[in-house]
């Protein structure tokens, strides 16, 4: 079964499978990096019990493709994939996996970092934090993909 390069899924994520998928392009590749985001047991002083993620699925898949296209502009030839899990996630579980493959390690590291920074800015996914004593919708960024300043910031972080 082939692994899609972008996905929103309720099932357990598999970073190795995504790394294989982006590396399948051929012998010209010299590096693959992966990023795995985990559910942490604390946030701003609160003891986190679990998270519930929700996505605007159809839009999120389109935004993932936008991020892939942006990365291809910055790092020609990059092979980038990302899977985001939604639904209830327990502490320690992976919420997102990103994999980037390239001829050289610098591009693979940078594209992977760029992708997670753009996810934080523009991917239509929300986390509902259930903590000791209550629950809250976390609210992060409001960024339009065409906002050049936000994109430049993500690129600067990726290349730092």
């Amino acid at each position, binding site marked *: 079964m082939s692994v899609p390069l972008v996905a929103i899924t309720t099932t357990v994520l598999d970073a190795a499978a995504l790394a294989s998928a982006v590396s399948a392009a051929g012998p010209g590749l010299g590096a693959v990096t992966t990023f795995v985001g985990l559910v942490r047991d604390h946030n701003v002083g609160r003891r986190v019990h679990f998270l519930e993620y929700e996505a605007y699925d159809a839009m999120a898949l389109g935004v993932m493709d936008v991020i892939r296209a942006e990365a291809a502009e910055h790092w020609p030839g990059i092979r980038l994939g990302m899977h985001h899990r939604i639904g209830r996630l327990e502490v320690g579980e992976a919420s997102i996996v990103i994999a980037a493959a390239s001829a050289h390690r610098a591009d693979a590291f940078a594209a992977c970092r760029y992708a997670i920074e753009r996810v934080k800015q523009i991917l239509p996914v929300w986390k509902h934090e259930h903590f000791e004593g209550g629950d809250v*919708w976390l609210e*992060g960024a409001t960024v339009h993909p065409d906002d050049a300043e936000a994109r430049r910031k993500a690129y600067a972080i990726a290349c730092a």
Partner: protein
Amino acid sequence: MRVTIRLFARLRDLVGQTEFTREIAAPATAASVWQVLVDEYPAARDHERTMSVAVNATYARLTTPVEDGDEVAFLPPVSGG
């Protein structure tokens, strides 16, 4: 014309519905759809400064034109990853 409205996260909880249709006078923009929503749910107005807008599952602006059958979504600040 009829437009489908999609809401997510805190905005969805506030209104109590995630997907519903409303009759909107043509010609319309995403702002016209938002106005119909806040007329019905005045508390939603607080989200206007911080929300994003999508038309047919693509990032848009409040000034984006809306046609019959379109899906218009209002998104609280995203927090994925």
